């Protein structure tokens, strides 16, 4: 009885996993076909090795530039958030200062507002600074995150106080305690914030779409979204392009799977 049950369970799980993965398999197969065989009826299921579709993506779009823009944007946002959020989170978790709870409440209030409410004024700020169509435009507002502060504050609150107290008795100031003691201890939390920020930054569409309309300055997601309107019939090339665009984050996920999962689980159970 108990020998047979897992077999049925595995059958259910394998079929549903295949349903999840099948669209991606079809994407890869399509990306390696010519347009005429992609639109053949009935369909063919063997890939054809048309690697030139991947080269064509670079002709349709300034794909190299957009790739670089996306990397720089994601790296900038991750670095900024990990540093700035951990500083604020440490202060909220450990330092005493007048107005601490009020300020923390103000930070949290940002989390409750749908992000579309920020967009028009943010656009005006970028326009006033002459930053439209620039890397600063897609990086700077993303350096600050109420979510990150909240996530890391929870993390700092869960850390033991003893090491900190010992360092303080040895005369270490707040910056030294934060930098040489708290940050190393909080590493799992910092990694969780970093992978989540990377995921959101890389896949972000609305803000990059609005603020950078020059194809050379776009991110991959905005560039692909714009492409879809113009070349909507050449599906093999579109599939190749969207595959290259989503691959880097998928690769990071495969290597840092545990951190990704823990980060997501953490936001669910404690956020």
């Amino acid at each position, binding site marked *: 009885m108990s020998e047979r049950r897992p077999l049925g369970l595995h059958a259910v799980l394998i079929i549903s996993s295949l349903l999840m993965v099948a669209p991606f398999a079809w994407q890869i197969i399509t990306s390696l076909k010519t347009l005429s065989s992609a639109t053949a009826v009935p369909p063919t299921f063997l890939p054809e090795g048309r690697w030139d579709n991947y080269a064509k993506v670079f002709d349709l779009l300034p794909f190299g530039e957009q790739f670089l823009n996306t990397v720089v944007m994601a790296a900038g946002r991750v670095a900024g958030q990990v540093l*700035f959020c951990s500083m604020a989170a440490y202060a909220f978790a450990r330092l005493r200062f007048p107005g601490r709870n009020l300020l923390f409440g103000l930070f949290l209030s940002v989390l409750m507002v749908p992000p579309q409410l920020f967009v028009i004024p943010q656009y005006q700020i970028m326009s006033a600074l002459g930053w439209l169509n620039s890397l600063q435009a897609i990086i700077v*507002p993303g350096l600050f995150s109420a979510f990150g502060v909240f996530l890391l504050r929870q993390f700092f609150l869960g850390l033991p106080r003893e090491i900190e107290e010992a360092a303080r008795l040895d005369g270490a100031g707040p910056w030294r305690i934060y930098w040489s003691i708290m940050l190393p201890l909080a590493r799992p939390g910092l990694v969780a914030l970093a992978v989540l920020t990377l995921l959101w930054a890389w896949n972000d569409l609305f803000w990059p779409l609005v603020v950078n309309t020059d194809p050379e300055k776009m991110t991959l*997601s905005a560039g692909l979204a714009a492409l879809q309107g113009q070349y909507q019939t050449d599906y093999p090339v579109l599939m190749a392009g969207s595959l290259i*665009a989503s691959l880097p*984050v998928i690769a990071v996920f495969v290597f840092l799977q545990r951190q990704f999962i823990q980060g997501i689980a953490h936001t669910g159970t404690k956020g």
Partner: protein
Amino acid sequence: MTGRKHAASRKPWTEALWGYAFIAPTGLGLAIFYLWPVLQTAYFSFTEWGAFGGHTWTGLENYARLFGDPEVGRAVLNTLTYTVLGLLGIPIAIVFAALLNRPGLGGVTLYRTAFFLPVVTMPVAVAMLWRWLYNGDYGLINQVLALAGIDGPNWIADPATALYALIVVGVWSSVGYNLIIFLAGMQAIPKELYEAASMDGAGRVRQFFRITLPMLSPTAFFISIVSVIGSLQLFDLVFVMTGSGQAARANPAYSRLQTVVQLFYERAFVTNDRGYAAAIVMALLVLIAVLTILQFRLQRRWVHYV
């Protein structure tokens, strides 16, 4: 000992200064790019924007226009339908989490990865992929249906099917995220509860309904709050599936797909009617607040806190 401790402890004002210094970067950033903009958007919703910049106070005019605008009504209805039906993803995620949570099950990492893949894939790429799968003439779905002799519709260009086709994509791409959170929630359930139940002779199915589901209800409540808020802001999928402007309106199902945030995008950045766009997004804020409060009110009926 006490004397030394006293000497080494910081003066309160030094500690306060450090505190302000530590929160300054994020505090200033949030004030400039997030908190002040909320107030500005609220103000803009009472103004009309000229073609060459500048805006004039028009009082409640935008809101009056909002209530009479059939396009807004349709967008709200579409968004609400997507939001409510999208909640079907929650029971699906719970069932798969329960299956994966079975002690000693092999291959869990592999299954979990398969479910999680759509979560980490760029939404623009997901939307493009499904547009291709849904293609009326050459899409894989209709080709497979044709093998069974069924003539499938032009899924996302057919007003009868478009919104439901979209919901399927939404559930497909979020079920992995919910699954991970439910799995974490399940691992926090004390093992003793299950041990006691199986000593009482309760089978797996009974344990699922009597222990797992009630213990998981706070997690399900959290997910329902988060996914309602997320669904009400749906943009990426629809934007890629329909495009915007003239090309989008050529899609016969456009009026069944347009969402509130997509309408906001068009008014704010395509037709540059930013006062009206601000009113639309203020209405979205109210909608999110009402549905969130409603869920908190209803939680007493189904959420069990230990």
